[in-house]
């Protein structure tokens, strides 16, 4: 077991942007260890397996990040095996089926960063399937998010603006000249791009006019010329006979857009604790506004000094999906995804059912007395069985796979696997001695795992 360092890795002040975004190079003061490897796999995925952690530990940060961004090998094989499930989910016509299918994908994918970023964009372009009422279209929306999750943001925004599921969800599927959909325009230039406070009511009205003529008919986008308002619109100071593409072009030129996306991604990948200063984000925002290359932005953040500093380390609260997958993925466990999706919804994250167009607030709001109780009961069901989870996850099997199935090894192994040396301090001392005595070995491993994943520390990413 890696000995937990007495203090967190120390770092120069995080406010110097040049230092913050330079690639992290481990040295004696900030060594590459299991903690940082675990941190990387939590943020760029849903928590590493023991093999993944060991591999990253051996490879160092930059090579590990390269692999997370572009996994070698088995991607095509995975897509092939998943294609059947994919088609079935699309055909199923069931909202629950689609939600479960996505969760299963997150659980099994060899490219967790792609799913993590798809989840990010789902929270950003927040569409609830209850408002779409067509799982086939929601499936298309999800595929779109995934296809562009690490690609060009401007292309993603443009595709979203004419995605049938999005139009249906936001009351924009019958955008008539006589009654432009303000709701759809408000989402497009608000939460989907610039956020609040950049467009006046006047701008909104003009944008809504520009978007008229878009319809969804039989699940397909149609542009109906006679329903489009061809007149001149004045949007964010620019005048012209604007259409949807023009509105997006103007939005994509606003400096506020890159700043907002970079800021949201900072909160997703680096820290929810402190809002970053404008100066810190400026270099990334400047670069992002030039190329809108999400993959590059994500890569810069993951490789950075700041990412591996105490300013980022465990400075996020896991959402329900991250929490549940953070138990299951390290154990290579498979559970009924539909039941898992239901549990995640009960503690606040209904996949494909974000509360509003603003997505999930996240951060501290994930944690209430009720959701912590729900998380605890979910962990219990996953590890001990119960309800739909007839085949509970098996921490002993995971330990044995790595030659750590001895009773005395249970504590250290599970601590390293789940918390990488950040145990609840006092408890660790007891736990790492191994279970005292009595009881079935498999059961004792389960109890330890349960203790660890219900600890406050485990709720932090």
């Amino acid at each position, binding site marked *: 077991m890696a000995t937990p360092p007495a203090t967190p890795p120390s770092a120069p002040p995080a406010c110097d942007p040049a230092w913050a975004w330079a690639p992290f190079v481990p040295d004696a003061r900030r060594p590459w260890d299991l903690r940082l490897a675990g941190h990387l796999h939590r943020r760029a995925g849903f928590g590493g397996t023991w093999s993944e952690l060991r591999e990253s530990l051996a490879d160092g940060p930059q090579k590990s990040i390269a692999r997370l961004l572009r996994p070698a090998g088995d991607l095509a094989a995975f897509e092939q095996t998943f294609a059947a499930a994919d088609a079935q989910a699309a055909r199923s016509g069931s909202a629950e089926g689609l939600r479960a299918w996505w969760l299963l994908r997150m659980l099994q994918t060899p490219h967790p960063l792609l799913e993590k970023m798809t989840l990010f964009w789902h929270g950003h372009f927040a569409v609830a399937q209850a408002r779409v009422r067509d799982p086939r279209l929601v499936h298309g929306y999800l595929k779109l998010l995934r296809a562009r999750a690490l690609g060009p943001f401007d292309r993603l925004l443009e595709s979203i603006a004419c995605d049938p599921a999005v139009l249906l969800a*936001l*009351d924009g599927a019958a955008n008539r000249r006589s009654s432009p959909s303000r*709701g759809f325009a408000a989402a497009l230039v608000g939460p989907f791009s610039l956020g609040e406070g950049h467009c006046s009511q006047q701008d909104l009205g003009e944008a809504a006019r520009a978007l008229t003529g878009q319809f969804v008919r039989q699940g397909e986008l149609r542009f109906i010329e006679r329903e489009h308002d061809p007149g001149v619109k004045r949007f964010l100071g620019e005048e012209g006979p604007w259409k949807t593409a023009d509105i997006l072009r103007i939005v994509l030129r606003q400096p506020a857009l890159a700043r907002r996306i970079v800021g949201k991604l900072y909160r997703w990948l680096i820290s*929810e*604790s402190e809002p970053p200063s404008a100066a810190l984000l400026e270099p990334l925002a400047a670069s992002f506004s030039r190329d809108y290359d999400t993959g590059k932005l994500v890569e810069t953040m993951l490789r950075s000094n700041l990412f591996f500093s105490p300013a980022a380390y*465990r*400075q*996020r*609260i896991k959402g329900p999906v991250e929490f549940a997958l953070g138990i299951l993925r390290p154990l290579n466990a498979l559970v009924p995804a539909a039941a898992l999706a239901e549990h995640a919804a*009960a*503690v*606040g994250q209904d996949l494909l059912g974000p*509360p*509003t*167009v*603003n997505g999930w*607030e996240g*951060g*501290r*709001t*994930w*944690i*209430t*007395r*009720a*959701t*912590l*109780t*729900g998380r*605890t*009961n979910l962990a*219990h069901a996953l590890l*001990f069985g119960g309800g739909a989870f007839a085949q509970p996850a098996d921490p002993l099997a995971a330990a044995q796979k790595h030659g750590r199935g001895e009773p005395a090894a249970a504590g250290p192994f599970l601590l390293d696997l789940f918390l990488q040396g950040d145990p*609840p*301090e*006092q*408890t660790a*001392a*007891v*736990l790492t001695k191994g*279970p*005292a*005595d*009595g*009881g079935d070995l498999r059961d004792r491993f389960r*109890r*330890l795992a*349960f*203790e660890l994943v*219900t*600890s*406050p*520390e485990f*709720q*932090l990413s």
Partner: protein
Amino acid sequence: MPANRRDFLKRALGASTLLGLSPTVPEFLCRAARAAGSRPSGGDTILVVVQLAGGNDGLNTVVPYADDHYARSRHTLRLAEKDVLKIDGLLGFHPGMPAFARLLQEGRLTVVQGVGYPHPNQSHETSLRIWQTARPENPAAQTGWLGGAADVLSGAGQADVPAMFVGQIAQPFTLHARTAIVPSVRAAEDCTLRVPRLACPTVFPALLDKPAVARGGAPGTLLEHVQRTAAAARIASRRIEQAAEAPAAVEYPPLPLAAMLRVIAQLIRADVGIRIYHTELGGEEPGGFDNHANQRDNHASLLRQLSQSVGAFVDDLRRAGFLDRVLLMTFSEFGRTLAENGRRGTDHGSAAPMFLAGGKLRGGLAGPHPDLSETEQGGVRHHTDFRRVYATILDRWLGLPSRVILGGQFEPLELFSG
């Protein structure tokens, strides 16, 4: 580790099993949780909302038995003077509602008459959504009115679980919130730590043994937030367990609504700071109150269930000393047509009465019975906008800003005593 700490851990975590904690909450944990602000609610008011899905026939609930228009329009469904539980010379309760009649006499029930909204919509889905969001002008509203109230409560840090749905159906949109996470439960056990073989698993007592600062959970950090909430969760769970184990002060009838109200009463007695409860009678859309044909028996059985269940709930809370803090409100998406439809049923109408029950009400009838000589799309014409009832409850009962939550100012009603 100093010896006394080791002893403590041994005691806390158990000698033979790591997790064999005493089932009672250790005093230090209570202290920590109290210090963290999870003390009992301090007497905050509570709202319980009962959705009656399907469109309740207000005219056969609070019956204008002496009104000729009513008598002439209801050939088979008419309830005559001899049938009803008389309120006054014009009105009487449906005969299946003796508990409501009693509560009215005791001053613990208010009938708000003629409640609706302008240009009533007669689709179940749309009208229900209007009542749920309180936004007739915006069918695409993103949150429900109680969800908005929950957002205000949790945003102000007044409650980390501001509202809860207790019922068997999917959570109604009324509770749909922007940031607050509103749990749905079916039983009190759903709110407790269900860990049969482990006595005290979730909150490591050790976490609270030392000041959080010393172990990194400095005040204001995310870690400290989780630790503090975990401690509060453990306490809330224990309180709920105790309240659920304690016998109710009255016997609840074996009816679905009574079962849900019993759970709510348990949670209220546990006093864990939940300000808003929501439950329902009538089920999913279109809802059991939608009686287009052969209405009589089905409607009677639902009204019996409503009356008996609410009666037991009010009595239970009164005996437990909580009634003065509780207000129950019913609503339905619309009333029904004045005229029968030829199939011994009624069709979608508009206005209807709302019921309020609790310990701090003025009681009796609020507002006149609507004039039945002029109907509105066949239904009863409203004289009181439902948002006035909501606004009064938000401002004067829950102490929340109705203007923010309802998106406008609505003239309050005089509903409460003192």
